[in-house]
């Protein structure tokens, strides 16, 4: 593992209104690994991602991407936010959405070039959606839509991928194949951080985990971070949570 972590947050505090959503959170996500952020609802998982990328103001703390301040290093990150906000009626095709992944490298006011279109098409092919480039995005199923946003992130060709609940409400087949894809990407040397809620999957498939509930409860190799006593600290000692973790 080379020197700097892929993503590191130091003492991040964020509050909406009176209460802190995140309170002095410290966490590191090592390079070249598949990491998950895990925690109960309202633990601040999405907020942590957005704060780490500098997309929302923080009360205090800082965040580093490969050792550089996050704001200056955003071109190293592809971020896939939760999808509720998207306007599925928008007159735009799947191909156009994926091509957006090349916009940063294309630069302001320039057309997307042939090489960039080729990269976008390859990304679409990699998620198994090559045949759908001309469809309007609203015509896709939920799983297919998520594949498109994966493809857009792939097309960005960044060393770090950050995704917020990418498998929420997604069918099992899509989840399995996208998880496999994430594994391949990790093997290619990319770093991946996703918010995920299935503890079992995280234990089996992920290298690293952050257990979060307003404060960072545990951060380390997935098996250690999700040990039963740690889970109790995040979810409470209720039998239900532990069973669920089973």
């Amino acid at each position, binding site marked *: 593992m080379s020197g700097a972590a892929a993503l590191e947050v130091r003492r991040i505090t964020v509050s909406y209104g009176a209460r802190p959503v995140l309170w002095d959170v410290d966490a590191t996500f090592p390079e070249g690994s598949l990491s998950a952020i895990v925690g109960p609802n309202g633990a601040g998982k999405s907020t942590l991602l957005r704060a780490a990328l500098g997309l929302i103001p923080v009360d205090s703390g800082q965040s580093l991407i490969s050792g550089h301040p996050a704001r200056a290093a955003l071109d190293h*990150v*592809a971020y896939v936010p939760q999808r509720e*906000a998207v306007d599925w009626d928008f*007159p735009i095709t799947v191909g156009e959405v994926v091509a957006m992944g090349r916009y940063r490298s294309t630069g302001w006011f320039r057309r997307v070039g042939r090489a960039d279109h080729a990269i976008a098409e390859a990304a679409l092919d990699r998620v198994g959606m090559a045949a759908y480039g001309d469809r309007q995005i609203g015509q896709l199923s939920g799983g297919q839509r998520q594949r498109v946003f994966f493809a857009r992130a792939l097309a960005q060709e960044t060393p770090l991928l950050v995704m917020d609940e990418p498998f929420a409400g997604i069918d099992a087949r899509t989840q399995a194949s996208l998880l496999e894809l994430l594994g391949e990407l990790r093997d290619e040397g990319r770093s991946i951080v996703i918010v995920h809620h299935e503890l079992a999957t995280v234990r089996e498939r992920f290298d690293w985990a952050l257990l979060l509930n307003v404060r960072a409860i545990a951060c380390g190799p997935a098996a250690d971070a999700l040990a039963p006593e740690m889970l109790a600290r995040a979810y409470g000692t209720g039998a239900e949570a532990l069973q669920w973790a089973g």
Partner: protein
Amino acid sequence: MNDDLVIIVTAGLAATACGLLGPFLVLRRAALLSDAVSHAVLPGIVATWLLFQTRAPLAVIIGGAVFAVLCVLAIDGLRSTGLVRSDAAIGLVFPLLFALGVLGVTRYASGIHLDLDSTIYGEIAFAPFDVWNVAGIEVARSVAIIGTIAALNLVFVVLAWKELKATTFDPGFAQTIGLRPQLLSRVMLIAVAITAVTAFESVGAILVVTLLIVPGATAYLLTDRLALMVALAVGIGWLSAVAGYWGAVAGDSSIAGTMGLVCALCFALALLVSPKYGLVATALRRRRRSAATATALAAER
């Protein structure tokens, strides 16, 4: 150019300028900003008169543009507090500016016949009588001014096409790739403000509002391609310019009003018979589907 042609070209160029921006307003759910901006022009005219004692078109356009931009920024500011929804912010700001304009007229400018009606209905019929001499060629002033704005809008939309598309479709993502959605949205609204101010001066406020909203909404019912949507919006605008003019001449009626009605007619047609999203098509699809389900159920039995 003969007079008919000048009027049609003026309206058509206004339709081009508006049609290039209108679809983005419709997609951003900000269609009514156009209404707000066109009303905010009035205090601009009054202030220009009070400060410089002039009603020269260029001065009025600049004065109006200042207030229109002010209007857009005030709406943005109110909305960004998170306490007022954007629709309520619009409805708070533009009546205020319009009220200030009316108060200015009644208090300080009642002597000068600042014609409120003509700012709203427009005086497109007078377009041919005001001619500029550009390098020895006589050009109707309205054609020159609106033509310039239409050209500027075209340059803006073509240049910033992918940026407009990305920030309109997915502002959150656009922000992460460094596209500055808020800045771009302000620039676009300022373009809308300047377009509205310039166009209202020759075609009237109501036609500007109509041209910014209705062709874009009509095109939205007809296509799933953004580029086609913009092209259709411009085309529908030209159609209503031509048809509206001849209709108005035939019926001896208001030109701006008739053009607006043709736009409305286009919208109604699209709403009914658009092949993809029209009421007829949707109803047919639904009936076919329920018929298919019925036969499938019957076959199962």
